[in-house]
């Protein structure tokens, strides 16, 4: 992905996180994570990314 494409995704996420509202944000992200994982078709890679995403979370 080019930096521009990353930015497109970043913006779409921000807009939709606001659109679904505070009580549905977690559900929305969890659904999205499942969907993207399925598309990626690589469970090991997804599990690695899950670990990476958990890092520095309290920073």
């Amino acid at each position, binding site marked *: 992905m080019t930096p521009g494409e990353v930015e497109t995704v970043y913006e779409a996420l921000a807009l939709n996180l606001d659109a679904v509202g505070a009580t549905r944000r977690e*559900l929305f992200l969890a659904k999205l994570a499942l969907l993207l994982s*399925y598309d990626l078709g690589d469970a090991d890679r997804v599990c690695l990314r899950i670990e990476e995403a958990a890092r520095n979370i309290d920073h």
Partner: protein
Amino acid sequence: MRPAGRAETDSLYFDYPHFDAPKERSHLDAPAPVAIVGAGPVGMTAALALARDGIASVIFDAKSTFNDGSRAICVARQSYYILERLGAVAPFLEKSLGWTTGRSFYRGQQILEFRMPDSPREKYRPMYNIEQQYIEQYLWDAIEREPLIEARWQSEVTAIDDLADAVRLTVRDPNGSYDISADWVLAADGARSTLRKMRGLKLKGENYEGRYVIADVQMDHDYPTIRRALFDPDCRRGGTVLVHKQPDNIWRIDYQLREGENETDAIAEENVRTSVAAVLADLGFTGDWELEWWSVYSANTLALDDYRDGRTFFIGDSAHIVPIFGVRGLNNGLADAQNIAWKLARVIKGQAAEVLLDSYTPERRGATLDVFANASKSARFMTPPTPGWQLMRNAALNLSLTHPFAGELANPRQMTPYTYADSPIVLPDDPGFDGGPVPGAPLPEARVGDGYLSDCLGPGFTLITFDPGLAETVADSDLATVVLQPGSEVAEVLAAGLGSAYLVRPDGHVASRWTRPSSALVCEALNRSLGKDRK
């Protein structure tokens, strides 16, 4: 529990028999080769399996009739093979409802339809629904035909003591108390096993969140025998409901209690009626219905560390408690009974070394742990224990409305036959095979002539070969040989070439297999399967 005004065994469709305590008392203290404590389905199966191998037993039960309520209702294919070997399967086939399909719904919309493995080469369906009373009745009918089994009802075992080469049980019935010694004891006394407590043993494991009410109702409901799971339905927002069809127009409805919902209130008759009515409304059923029986349970995965304690073996619920979503409680117990019975019979007859009995725990406890792994997955989906599990479950359900792959997470995976991989009596595989069942796995089914492969098996061990020459060179009184056609359906299912052979145990599991067998290899494997290599 039953509706007000009806006694504990006052059923809408089943007449409970009444059994007296033994009247003739002179022989009560005569020693028995095997004493079985508990005449539930597992104890009765063990008694029948021993009798089939020529071993006499005395079976005790504290009650004067069968278990109350229908309890376990799903009997798996593997259990039908056990019943068949006991000569008891015919009434089961006649009464039960076979099924292969399950449907899951999320807020009223179907998100998954799964089919359990089935094909024309299978003799039995993957699952059958039948009320537990009938299971017990049909096993009991077989026991009554069997002179080697003596059943003593209203006879409670109150103490157990080890003697030098036997076990002494103290038994109390309405007419008195007596001691009886037995060479071996099978503790089939259920989840609250008193023998387990008397031996100072404890079940270990986990208790799961989530409590369910299970209710049986009788109604004229037009729907096939398909397991339905309702997630987050209108009648029970946030909860899960299961619906199963049983014979006699009886329907099993399991519904989850809400967090904080008071259990005593929940099982009050009025509230059960209201909750059931709401489920039926959700199912679109508008006719009359009658409440038969209800109970409450929570999911546990608990097991003994060792199913053997000296001369006492724990079988069925006394050894393990599994969540009922996996429908393995009873099925697992029947396999325990069969497993210990063929081993014990051969040890008693001097055909096997006593060390064979040490394979019971690794094989059957292994199977239980496997059930735990599957059932824990189901339990976590049905009743998510923490916010993380809850969020992912809800995400999967929500996503499944548009993407079927997510609905697969709601598949209860009830049918995975277990392979005895870590058993001391199962031999390493022959690397020459490309497919087919590995040693320790249950023998798969295939059509042979007008019948099935399972019909060809002998009463003890069976050597399956495709080479008449090999069959002629092995002879053992406990071994039957079956010569089958190369290139046939069986050969394909077993991935067997011209020279291949399989040794199958009395419980239908593969003991060993070879691409290039010899009579010496077959004898060696037979000895190993009987513990005779480690005397």
